């Protein structure tokens, strides 16, 4: 690890002021992803400002929805009865990610801010515009099987790895921040950026801007998260899909669909959403919507498999959310969220 100084923040305001005035400073919360990047030499901060002890660990009712403090652990958020019952996609996405040990420590603000799992980003000997602007992109012509289908650029084909970010994008969560210019609210789908020519910037957050909470708006529909990965548990998604469905009698009033691990940010399938609105849910409709969602996909050399896989996954997620097919496990658990393997089996009482 590159040497750094360490400081524990006493307040959010102090943390923001400290990081804002020091270009080499950065926040650290749970650290489960951050410490690994320090070890790998990808991160070389001069100062770590520890925000893990700040009083941002409550889940409270807020404007008909829920306010989840930035420091709430992934475990606590997933286990919250309010989250699990009203926003099962959030619990499912959290529990389908990482391991118990990591979820116990990882924070709700940190999870969506984790960096790509592109292997070239994590290897300082390789060209990577995200890690080192201007150095090139080794993944473009390299082994790009986990890389992007949508919104990539010649500078970067990385995907965003967070599961819960996909669910938060589908639910139109809002991110509350405190920054150099004071507090602001960011619509979750706007938080992450596409790579363009500046892939080193994952989000629109400014230097020194701290997430203080993630707000889930009032929502009375159904939500669901489904994930396919290379092993049964404790693996990043190859493709994932979050659905938020609001019904109007027998018809869909509004459907929101976000795809994970296919772009530099959670990818809202807006063309599919438009097709679903006002329609009666059928498998045929869902297949047409999935075809529309993946029509714009631009596969690379090694990730073309993601197109049929993603299409199929999206159909299944819609079928399960609309109850045309049963969930594979109890709503709000990893068993509902995981395709295949041990985790995909229904968890039955002994």
């Amino acid at each position, binding site marked *: 690890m590159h040497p*750094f*100084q360490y400081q524990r923040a006493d307040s959010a305001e102090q943390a923001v002021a400290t990081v804002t005035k020091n270009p080499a400073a950065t926040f650290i919360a749970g650290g489960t992803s951050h410490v690994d990047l320090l070890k790998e030499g990808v991160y070389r901060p001069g100062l*770590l400002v520890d925000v893990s002890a700040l009083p941002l660990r409550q889940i409270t009712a807020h404007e008909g929805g829920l306010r989840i403090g930035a420091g709430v652990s992934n475990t606590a958020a997933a286990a919250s009865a309010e989250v699990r019952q009203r926003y099962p996609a959030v619990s499912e996405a959290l529990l389908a990610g990482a*391991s118990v*040990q990591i979820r116990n420590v990882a924070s709700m603000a940190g999870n969506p801010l984790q960096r790509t799992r592109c292997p070239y980003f994590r290897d300082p000997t390789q060209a990577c515009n995200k890690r080192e602007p201007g150095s090139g992109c080794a993944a473009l012509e390299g082994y790009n099987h986990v890389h992007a289908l949508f919104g990539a650029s010649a500078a970067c084909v990385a995907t965003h790895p967070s599961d819960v970010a996909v669910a938060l994008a589908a639910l139109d969560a809002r991110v509350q921040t405190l920054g150099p210019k004071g507090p602001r609210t960011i619509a979750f789908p706007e938080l992450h950026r596409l790579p363009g020519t500046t892939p080193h910037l994952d989000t629109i957050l400014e230097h020194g801007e701290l997430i203080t909470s993630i707000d889930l708006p009032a929502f009375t529909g159904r939500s669901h998260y489904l994930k396919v990965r290379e092993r049964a*548990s404790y693996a990043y998604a190859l493709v994932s899909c979050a659905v938020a469905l609001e019904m109007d009698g027998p018809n869909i009033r509004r459907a929101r669909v976000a795809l994970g691990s296919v772009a530099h940010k959670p990818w809202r399938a807006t063309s599919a959403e438009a097709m679903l609105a006002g329609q009666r849910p059928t498998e045929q409709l869902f297949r047409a919507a999935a075809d529309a969602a993946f029509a714009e996909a631009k596969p690379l050399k090694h990730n073309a498999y993601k197109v049929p896989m993603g299409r199929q996954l999206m159909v299944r997620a819609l079928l399960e959310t609309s109850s045309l097919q049963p969930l594979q496990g109890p709503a709000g658990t990893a068993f509902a969220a995981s395709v295949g393997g041990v*985790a995909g089996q229904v968890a039955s*009482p002994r």
Partner: protein
Amino acid sequence: MSLPLKPEFPLALQTGDLAPDCELPDGSRLTELRGRPVVLAFAPDTWDPTLAHQSELFAQLLAEFGSGAAFVDAAADEWHALDCRGELAERFGVVGKRALFLLDEQGIVRWKTVVEPGEDLRPGPVLAALEALHPPTPAAASPATGVLASGLTRRTFVTATLAAAALLLLPGCRTESSDTNEQAATGSADGAGSGNGLLAVTLRINDKNYPLQLDPRVTLLDALREHLHLTGTKKGCDHGQCGACTVHLNGQSALSCLTLAVMSQGQEITTIEGLSTGEALHPMQAAFLKHDAFQCGYCTPGQIMAATALLQDQTTRTGSAVELREAMSGNLCRCAAYPNILAAIQEVQRA
């Protein structure tokens, strides 16, 4: 033992000589260390694996030694790195040279090697010689403690010899560059408060407080193993992928390799050493034994810490096999003792 080097140097202390008493950099005197073997390494640089050229050499040594990356961060606090420009180097007759002395429990030089400036040294022969002198084999160690007949623990011996040999690989003394060296060594960690970059950290582990001086880069895992010698917690991958380093933070399982020690201040840390009560094993430990839930045992402390934390976890309340497999997926077992691990956990859950 044969060395393809030129270990003899006319003015240097000879094998069999009694080492002269002297003060070491940490303030202790050599005579105070009688009763245990001492490694003295003279080099132009102090050992700091965070310095790029040193870590490169060390990595090269590890590759030849085949001991794996687990030693890279190991601090060897039972050996002494000495400045080859100093008074000690004069008394040992090795001014301006890289040299390694192994003293036995009586303070007699048992083995030494001196490298002339400009001379090249390959790590293989040095390690072979060190091993021949003091083989770190399981047979020579007490199975319970890993302590060699000489009183040196096996891991300390291996670490110390590796580190010392790495020192010998460093370029020879260049007195004109001494200032640069010192700047590089202190500048790297300077500014974090105390001048040497160390922070006063108190960790509460197994109901006891441990005051430490730590670089902020030290992970909780390294603080446990290298600073406090609580080596029950294992370093597997050191990247959060295997679960071998699992401990409890405030009763919940956590990966000590992905936790900076300084950030775990104020938390109740429990390690595998804190589970048993004297000789009485925790029920989970007993169940692992009963169900033969391991082969090599390296992942076992992490498995047991993850499993004991699950006893309080609501998400595994039914204790079904699929729930437990999912909840334990962060702990890998290379020997694939999974069915037995599952059986052990289920037995404790039902009790």
